[in-house]
């Protein structure tokens, strides 16, 4: 299980990185194509989708690496049970927010799907496809958060706390 979860987060990180690489390649292609008077359609749409995909896929990976920032100044002045309680409260707040995001993210994508929402640019794209990246990213993020909360409750210090100091 531990191995599977860690693999999940790191794969999401690699996917997120791949999307940034894709944006680079896409834009470079557009620049070169312009020299030859060729139009690559919907580059701005696709780079936008790739950016969203990268950002959402990277959420869990970044969290595990302690990349998301917060003010630890008060927490770091406390110790023992107080510190643990404060950390648990912060975790509960973020878990509630991300649960909210998961629920409405799902409704959002589902509505795009049943109402056949399509993009307004050059190439019509069924919007639920790029939007799924938001949902998947948020779901994995939620898993990662619950994973760390469980660790804290078990008395194990999760990686992000170590990375923060």
């Amino acid at each position: 299980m531990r191995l599977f979860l860690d693999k999940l987060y790191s794969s999401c990180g690699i996917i997120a990185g791949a999307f940034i690489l894709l944006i680079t390649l896409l834009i470079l292609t557009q620049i070169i194509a312009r020299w030859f008077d060729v139009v690559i359609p919907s580059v701005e749409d696709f780079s936008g989708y790739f950016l969203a995909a990268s950002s959402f896929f990277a959420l869990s990976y970044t969290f595990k690496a302690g990349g998301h920032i917060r003010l630890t100044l008060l927490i770091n002045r406390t110790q023992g049970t107080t510190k643990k309680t404060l950390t648990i409260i912060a975790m509960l707040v973020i878990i509630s927010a991300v649960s909210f995001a998961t629920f409405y993210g799902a409704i959002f994508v589902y509505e795009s799907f049943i109402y056949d929402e399509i993009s307004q640019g050059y190439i019509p794209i069924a919007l639920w496809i790029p939007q799924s990246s938001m949902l998947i990213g948020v779901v994995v993020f939620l898993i990662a958060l619950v994973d760390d909360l469980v660790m804290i409750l078990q008395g194990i210090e999760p990686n992000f706390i170590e990375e923060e100091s």
Partner: protein
Amino acid sequence: AGTKWDMPTPYGDGVHHTKNIRLFAEDIKKATGGELNIVVHSGASLIKHPEILRAVKSSQVQIGEIFMGLLANDNPIFKADNIPFLAPNFDAAKKLYAASKADVEKHLAKQGLKLLFAVPWPPQGFYTKKVINSVSDIKGMKLRAYSPTTSRLAVLLKATPTTVQTPEIPQAFSTGIIDAMVTSPSTGVSSQAWDFVSNYTDTQAWIPKNMIIVNSRAFKKLDKKIQSAVLDAAVKAEARGWEMAQQETSAKTATLKEKGMKVSKPSDSFQKELQLIGKTMGDEWVKETGDSGKVIIKALK
């Protein structure tokens, strides 16, 4: 207490559309004695243009304004006012609107939306670095394309369609990424086109419209009296908006001239060449739309 509606619009306060919407909101406030208060959020300050339709549809806001052509991928009927030289003056544009309105309303109704009114932009003209007197002058130019229709237009003009995002247009002109674009005198003035391009050819290529849509459920929730106040205000706003668009056309074209741009009308022979291209694109559009397109083309004749 009264009802408050939030209304996102995409364009800034200087554009006649936004001025008209603000008057529309005021009219309703007056007519209902403050029972319905529409708060206008101009310039995409609340919700960005691509998301406004969705926001109205799913009751995130009750009412909004969008560019009709934005729905072209959903239904080709929304492309009607973007086909070059199909309805190249305000009278024809009115006819086109009347002929396509039923189809537009039907499509919107399916999505739980109600069309309140539509107001045109000034007719579209060519902004070019060099003077153009015929289609052959456009040949080889890099023409800004932002939709399949404008891209097709570029191809038929034997120009190279080039995509550039709106905020990057000035830089794209001055560095030679593009050397021509088609847009209205309004956009020309609001982006101060004279800083980066020197010729405006008033081809009256097409007259696109913005539409004001309301969420049907939100509308039905209003008292009958307020509903009719909204509809009355909409009729008034539509008439006013078309007037404003015509005034805007002459005022903004004059501004272009004042600021030192070379403003010209295309010669008859140039106009004929352009109409030929318009015919091709009109035929292609009818193929796409089927019967509804045929009816509209017939109404225009």
